[in-house]
């Protein structure tokens, strides 16, 4: 591997300061994607600034809603009983991310900031309408996760910012959610995945939030399908319309893991399966 320096600041302030003074530096959290990218020479940083020694970044707080430090590992999430109780769909996705060795090190914020179209954590967080907090030396801003992704490997995180927190609204008793993922084996990157959150009242869908993975250049909210479902009664006909629209909305590619056609098909099937699951 190409040589680089490795720094471990103890505070957020120090981490932000270091980045400004060192040319070619990059932040590292869990590193399970980053180290591979460096090995493959997709990235050639002069210095890695580790965020793993900043305790407040790894904290998980339940405060009505939840504040998940961006450096909380996927295993930290799975082991957090209250988080799992309040947001089961988040934990369902966490359990499907990589192998145990990866989950023990990979971080929630890292999964988002890597901006893979297949990012497992993005889907439940999109349907839960999570916000992310981005901090620079000068300012802090909160943006909806749905506005964070800009393309494969691209987000609106600027080079002088650190994602510090993922923020969740208090859980609603009225909603039901599910996460579905297709991989060749359980620990694979998703061939296609779908998260679905709905609120039902008297057989009518009052609210729908849908997100799909590995079927576009970024984890995608399916706003059109949500609009179609909201206000409608759930019937064979409305489910079939939602399936068709979901298939038409996504824009997958063919690669070594699956074809475009297959990915579209899976999204349609998952749309139906997801609705059946939440409507019991």
């Amino acid at each position, binding site marked *: 591997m*190409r040589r680089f320096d*490795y720094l471990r600041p103890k505070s957020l302030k120090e981490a932000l300061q270091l980045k400004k003074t060192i040319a070619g530096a990059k932040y590292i959290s869990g*590193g399970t994607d980053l*180290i*591979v990218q460096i090995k493959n020479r997709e990235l050639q940083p002069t210095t890695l600034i580790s965020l793993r020694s900043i305790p407040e970044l790894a904290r998980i707080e339940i405060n009505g809603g939840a504040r998940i430090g961006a450096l909380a590992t996927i295993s930290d999430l799975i082991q957090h009983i209250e988080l799992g109780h309040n947001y089961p769909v988040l934990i369902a996705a966490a359990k499907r991310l*990589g*192998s*145990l*060795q990866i989950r*023990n090190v990979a971080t929630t914020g890292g999964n988002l900031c890597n901006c893979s179209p297949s990012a497992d954590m993005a889907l439940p967080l999109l349907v839960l309408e999570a916000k992310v907090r981005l901090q620079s030396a000068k300012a802090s801003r909160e943006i909806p996760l749905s506005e964070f992704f800009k393309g494969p490997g691209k987000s609106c995180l600027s080079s002088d910012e650190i994602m510090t927190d993922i923020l969740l609204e208090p859980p609603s008793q009225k909603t039901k959610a599910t996460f579905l993922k297709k991989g060749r084996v359980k620990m694979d990157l998703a061939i296609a995945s779908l998260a679905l959150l709905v609120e039902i009242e008297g057989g009518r869908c009052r609210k729908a939030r849908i997100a799909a993975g590995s079927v576009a250049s970024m984890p995608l909210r399916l706003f059109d399908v949500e609009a179609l479902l909201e206000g409608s009664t759930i019937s064979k006909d409305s489910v079939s319309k939602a399936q068709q629209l979901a298939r038409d909305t996504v824009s997958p590619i063919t690669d070594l893991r699956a074809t475009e056609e297959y990915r579209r098909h899976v999204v349609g099937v998952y749309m139906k399966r997801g609705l059946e699951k939440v409507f019991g």
Partner: protein
Amino acid sequence: MKAEISFILNGSEVNVTIDGHLRLIDILRNTMSLTGTKEGCGEGECGACTVIVDGRAVNSCLYPAHEIEGKSVTTIEGLRMPEHKLSEIQQAFVDNGAIQCGFCTPGMIMSAKALLDSNPNPSDEEIRDALQGNLCRCTGYVQIVEAVKSVAGQIMGKK
């Protein structure tokens, strides 16, 4: 830029001076000469490099060496018993025919150990989930799962 780090390796404190770009597996194999830990894919897919850091199984090929400062690392060499005897889990792999070429074995055993340390009586599903990140290309996984189960049974029997 070199830095000195100290950590617990298989129960003993060690100090090493290392470069920034090194990974935990580089330190284990090249600096400490502990070659039981294997590098297979180098990308976190195969699990041959699995070691235990502070109780959790991790891929040492993706673990920046600097992050090991102040932590406790257990490698396959740390399972050695007095008089060159094998540990219970190692013996179970031998007894159950869970080894062919042996390249995946140290990683497989470290994943199994991390599981059994935190969950002495795992279900089949829990065993398979804990070993999902360890690939064996010689054979299937039935004997390996059997080996882990036999140790879980023994531990249960002792209670």
